[in-house]
């Protein structure tokens, strides 16, 4: 049994009217990869923030490397060897890699001026520690997202990090890049660094962690050895009840063709052809950058089409903007919920009716009664938990925000709905509701185009799966041929 590097004991943090952390005690061993899972609002982020000193707990203590602290501040946390890699990077695009790595730090051997040579050399050495080649003189904006994340990790290494906290690190990465990140995590682990790994993706938790802790409602539930548990058990612990992660079955058969794409091309899309039938769920799989989102935007008129044809119910269409697509009965649930889906400062009612507001108007004037009724219909249909339809959307949890976006799309009464990563970053319970909803929509005759990076989701929900690679369709799989390995094979085809 290895000794503990970090122990938090009896940590409580309250905000007016809510207990964010309720007497949480947890231990992290030296050199282990320790996963933390829990639904949105379970208290994971708050716990991380107490460890990094971003917030001060009301009570409790933090024991790190044998020393006891009743509170930490960010500078103290860094100096004792606690590093964090956040989802959003805290790097400066205009500076070089080495300058970012050593930002705010003194490099040995320099007196008053920055010694770029030493900085670049040290950056290279730090890179070697985790098995990557780093060119310290490159500007940060020249790097890919994955490379930037490596710079973040290197930056933590430069501080002699003993504990590295990674908060949803895989979210912006492609599958290949995630593999690379896992290798880096393994190397760090071998060097005795403890890693706290937070992720919504269960498969990653099982791939990479040694132990995993579960949190719910601000409380610590349990810590288990990853090899002694399974997906279902973890999910049950997270939601505190039996919850089957299941995909609803198709009942009604698919109907006639409603949409046909022939040799579509545009930026990032080279030659995409497929057909969509009434009531069908057509899944789109592929690695990041394979042109999935771009294809959807071409169909939705949100992007310029270079070539190819699109037929809607047999009629050739050419949408020059999204309004034309919407008027023809196509609607989109975008990938980036916060950036492209919601109007955060507006109410649920406002958000859910903005796409169909013209239909709720007479002589250009919005019929407020109709607006309220429509909003209520879809708030109820989506089971959005809110005391009032006037609640601002920015105050909702991620899952409920996503439901508002879907409500907005449903309110347009579109008969083709595009879902781009419909469950990204939302918790297990809300995911289930979205799955059930998509299936239910298909049963009522709505045709669905669905993109997802989670293969299980695509396999579980789709009737057929289009696999894309480098902007081209590599195969269209029928249900009997669905398998993760098959999809990955076709997705990584050159």
């Amino acid at each position: 049994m290895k000794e503990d590097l970090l122990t938090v004991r009896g940590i409580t943090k309250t905000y007016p009217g809510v207990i964010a952390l309720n007497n949480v005690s947890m231990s992290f061993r030296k050199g282990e990869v320790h996963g933390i899972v829990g639904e949105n609002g379970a208290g994971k982020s708050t716990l991380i923030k107490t460890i990094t000193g971003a917030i001060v707990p009301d009570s409790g203590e933090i024991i790190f490397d044998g020393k006891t602290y009743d509170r930490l501040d960010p500078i103290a946390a860094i100096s004792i060897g606690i590093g964090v890699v956040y989802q959003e990077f805290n790097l400066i695009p205009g500076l070089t890699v080495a300058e970012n790595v050593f930002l705010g730090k003194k490099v040995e051997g320099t007196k008053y001026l920055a010694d770029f040579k030493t900085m670049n050399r040290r950056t290279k050495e730090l890179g070697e520690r985790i098995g990557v080649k780093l060119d310290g003189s490159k500007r940060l904006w020249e790097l890919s997202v994955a490379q930037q994340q490596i710079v973040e990790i290197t930056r933590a290494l430069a501080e002699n990090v003993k504990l590295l906290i990674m908060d949803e690190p895989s979210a912006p990465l492609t599958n290949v890049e995630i593999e690379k990140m896992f290798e880096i995590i393994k190397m760090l682990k071998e060097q005795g660094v403890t890693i706290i790994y937070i992720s919504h993706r269960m498969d990653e938790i099982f791939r990479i962690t040694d132990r995993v802790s579960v949190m719910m409602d601000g409380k610590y539930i349990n810590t288990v050895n990853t090899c002694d548990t399974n997906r279902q058990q973890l999910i049950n612990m997270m939601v505190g009840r039996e919850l089957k992660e299941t995909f609803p079955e198709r009942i009604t058969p698919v109907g006639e063709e409603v949409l046909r794409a022939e040799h579509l091309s545009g930026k990032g899309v080279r030659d995409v052809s497929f057909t969509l039938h009434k009531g069908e769920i057509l899944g789109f799989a592929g690695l990041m950058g394979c042109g999935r989102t771009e294809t959807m935007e071409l169909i939705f008129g949100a992007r310029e089409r270079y070539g190819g044809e699109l037929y809607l119910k047999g009629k050739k269409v050419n949408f020059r903007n999204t309004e034309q697509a919407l008027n023809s009965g196509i609607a989109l649930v975008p990938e980036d919920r916060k950036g492209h889906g919601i109007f955060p400062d507006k109410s649920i009612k406002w958000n859910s009716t903005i796409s169909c507001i013209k239909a709720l108007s007479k002589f250009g004037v919005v019929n407020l009664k109709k607006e309220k009724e429509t909003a209520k219909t879809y708030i109820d249909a989506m089971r959005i938990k809110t005391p009032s339809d006037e609640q601002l959307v920015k105050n909702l949890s991620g899952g409920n925000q996503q439901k508002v976006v879907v409500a907005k799309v449903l309110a347009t009464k579109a008969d083709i709905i595009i879902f781009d990563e419909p469950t990204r970053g939302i918790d297990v319970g809300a995911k289930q509701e979205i799955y059930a909803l998509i299936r239910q929509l298909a049963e009522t005759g709505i045709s669905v185009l669905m993109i997802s990076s989670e293969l299980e989701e695509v396999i579980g929900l789709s009737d057929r799966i289009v696999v894309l690679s480098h902007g081209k369709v590599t195969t269209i799989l029928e249900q009997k041929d669905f398998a993760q390995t098959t999809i990955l094979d076709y997705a990584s085809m050159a």
Partner: protein
Amino acid sequence: MMDKVLKAWQKIGMFVVLLILVVFFSLTSDKFMTTSNILNILRQVSVVGTAGVGVSFVMISGSTDLSVGSIVALCTVIIYKLVMAGVPVPIVCLIAILIAASCSVINGILANTLQTHPFALTLAMSNVWTGVAMLACGGVVLFGLSEKFTIIAKYQIFGAIPSLIPIFSFLAMIGIFVLSRSYFGRRVYALGGNPEAARLAGIDTKKMTILTHALAGAFYGAAAILYCARTATGDGMSGTSYAYDLITAANLGGITIGGGSGHAYGAILGLIVLQVLTNGLTLLGVSEFYQRIAKGLILIGALTIAMAQRKSANRTDKEIAMIKDKKDN
């Protein structure tokens, strides 16, 4: 406590400031609270405020317009020339509105195609329009506009209220109504609140940009008509302070730079506050230089309060969000 004060301020802050100013000036100057002075203030507000309604549209849609004054000025010169050439007044008015709308639409088209910040763009266009206006008027103020036209402002309702004020009130109400109650207004807010979300929600954002500018331009044209009617002049430099005053007024009234929030009536209220301040200080014999300093400081004050409100709102929002999340689980 502080949060509550800030929240209340958002709703009634400008009324409070206005009340304080009115009381203060009434006590310190015996000329302030006279019918003629109050009507004078309102007449001034009417002209600039009509343009202000247009600016509200542009600002709420997430853009900004520094060329408002130059468009108004250009139109005053055109109106003068047309009226003096004997064109019938209704047709002159129509032409003025169409020209102003076209000028503003050009801003919109440029914004769509160049994808650059409207600040720089409208700054450039304001030079263009001012240049055109100065060419048209020959660089001098054109005095002595015909009675046929100035009757628009001279007509008195109930024997006391100059017609400018009800005309302005009517136009302002149209603007307020369109913004708050029409589906077009909703889309203006959507465009300002999150342009990419608006686009992906099925709103043709480029068309919206053009339409918003067209409507704003129509208000600029109306402002030019009221200006000519009130002053009986055409002046290529008449609107030089409009952009500054109106953006200040909009900020005072809760329309933030960046768009998506605020109301047209807020901007009008902000404008009234500015005009009362200018008028009162002038009556007290405070030099124009001090007035400028005061206006600048007031804008800084308004921005400070706006920032405090945002912070306070975010703070409470976070708490609400946490409570919400708890309930969800």
